[in-house]
């Protein structure tokens, strides 16, 4: 007899786990299917930055709520996640970069984010280790960083204790539709009957979408990062670059973590996660340039990861008109980690109450052909396949017929 589930979440990264946690909190028993280990792909390679600044303005309400949620995450999940809210410096080295940064800061201020432009003197007060060539920065004091592995694990542990079921090392091979609606998820080990599937598969989100006959303008972008041996505390801020060329931080354990881009990543990826001989050195040169004091610090490990890059750089969230019962939560384009707690809540709200408390219309799948005028909320009608027991709209609709 096949297994049944209220909802199946494809992907056991931070997003999938956050959704599972929120749904389990509401009393559902979500089934999470993950092809490797918990947080084994992008959630296991991220730099751990949790920021609001330098985001697409459409994401700002979600990002600001997410920062609030991060502040109470350790209490909510009952586990220390090494969250540090000590600000984010986005360093500029030229007049041109300063100008771009100024515009971006003004734009972000206009949607309510607290950040400012600071000059070299002010930077040195916050972080005395920056190199000579840094002349200014955008500074957002409420940004920070977190241990990404522990956040994913904490969501996983809590979701599991609340009744979520996990199938790790199991790959989804197909999603069965009947009359266009989701009826089952097929993996390499079993078949799970369900009428609700959440695509939180990150980089494989496109493949999962293909299973129900829709496609996403998404491609994997390759990225590398490195880490040093532990050193005494130097600075606590998250460091970024005006053009996003590199990012980094000192973790609470002492090692410095730096990641970066050289510009060829979009073109060199051929599958798998190899390391390229020129990216690590390029990151090292940028680190020495911006933080000369780290020149003789020792790199002990390098790794790579894949970013689920959308054509417009913002995620796909919410319901899909074409396939009732299919919910998107993927395509975070390299900045999904900071959003995870709020995405977990919003997707759970969408499933439980048919509407998210922060509008996610701008992230709907239909934006690719209909623009942003679409309202992403379940109207509750014959097409809605959400489990009757949990869907108020559907209950109303059933009463009315």
């Amino acid at each position, binding site marked *: 007899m096949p297994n049944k589930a209220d909802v199946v979440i494809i992907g056991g990264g931070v997003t999938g786990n956050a959704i599972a946690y929120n749904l389990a909190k509401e009393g559902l028993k979500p089934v999470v299917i993950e092809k*490797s*280990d*918990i*947080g*084994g792909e992008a959630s*296991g390679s991220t730099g751990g930055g949790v920021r609001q600044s330098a985001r697409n303005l459409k994401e700002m309400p979600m990002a600001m709520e997410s920062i609030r949620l991060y502040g109470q995450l350790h209490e909510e999940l009952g586990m220390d996640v090494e969250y540090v809210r000590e600000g984010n410096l986005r360093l500029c080295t030229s007049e041109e970069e300063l100008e771009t940064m100024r515009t971006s800061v003004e734009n972000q201020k206009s949607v309510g984010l607290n950040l400012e432009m600071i000059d070299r003197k002010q930077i040195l007060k916050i972080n005395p280790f920056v190199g000579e060539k840094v002349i200014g920065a955008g500074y957002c004091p409420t940004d920070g960083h977190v241990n990404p*592995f*522990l956040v994913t*694990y904490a969501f*996983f*542990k809590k979701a*599991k204790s609340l009744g979520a079921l*996990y199938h*790790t*090392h199991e790959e989804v091979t197909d999603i069965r539709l009947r009359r266009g609606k989701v009826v089952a998820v097929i993996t390499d080990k079993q078949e799970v009957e369900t009428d609700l599937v959440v695509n939180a598969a990150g980089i494989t989100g496109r493949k999962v979408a293909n299973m129900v006959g829709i496609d996403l303008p998404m491609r994997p972008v390759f990225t590398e990062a*490195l880490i*040093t*041996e*532990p050193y005494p505390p130097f600075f606590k801020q998250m460091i970024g670059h005006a053009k996003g060329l590199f990012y980094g931080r000192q973790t609470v*354990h002492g090692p410095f973590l730096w990641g970066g881009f050289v510009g060829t990543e979009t073109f060199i990826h051929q599958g798998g996660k190899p*390391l390229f*001989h*020129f990216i*690590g*050195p390029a990151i*090292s*040169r940028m*680190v*020495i340039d911006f933080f000369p004091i*780290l*020149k*003789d*610090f*020792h*790199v*002990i*490990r*390098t*790794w790579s990861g894949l970013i689920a890059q959308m054509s417009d750089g913002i995620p796909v969230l919410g319901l899909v008109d074409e396939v009732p019962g299919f919910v998107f939560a993927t395509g975070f384009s390299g900045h999904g980690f900071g959003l995870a707690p709020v995405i977990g809540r919003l997707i759970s709200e969408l499933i439980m109450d048919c509407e998210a408390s922060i509008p996610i219309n701008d992230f709907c799948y239909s934006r690719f052909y209909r623009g942003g005028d679409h309202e992403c909320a379940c109207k509750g009608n014959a097409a809605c396949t959400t489990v009757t027991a949990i869907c108020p709209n559907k209950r109303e609709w059933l009463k009315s017929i």
Partner: protein
Amino acid sequence: MAPVFIFIEDIQKALDSDKKEIMIPRETRISAAAFDLIKGNDIRIRFVGDQKDDALKAPVDPTQETQASPAVGRISDGELEKVVDLVISRIKGAKSQESSETVKKENGPTDDDLVICRCEEITKGEIKEVIKNGIKTPNGIKRITRAGMGLCQGQTCQRLVTQILATGLGINPTEIKPTTGRAPVRPVSFSAFSTG
């Protein structure tokens, strides 16, 4: 408590006063010569505050530690039976705990306190906790516990972690895929690394 020593003079005194029994506190160490004298004269040793399993902790001759514990003092058949039962139950207990559970000692360190990853000071207990929660790969254990993230990059603890994981999952260690190899093999400074 510092050990109390019993020397040949003390035994000689007991012999002189015609006693065939001496009282000594726990943890008493007996000198080699005194031990020979006790054996040769059939002197019985009693511990101050004697309890039923005292016989197990009978002081051992410091010079003959490799020998089977010599019969210091005499115990009755009943006592012997008790001791044998105690030993058997302890051996059985140890065997059943061997696989996963800890050998608890009151207030002392347990098996779970064993440091597996020396660089990051990660204990066996922390690793077992993560396996219990459903993490099934060395990579997963590394990410969550930090075992293998230190300076030696898991060169010391990788095999131990694999062993603990194999025990936890009930499979052969050879079936477990090792952690992903990460460059550089030895720590390299930024200035050296930047030259490519």
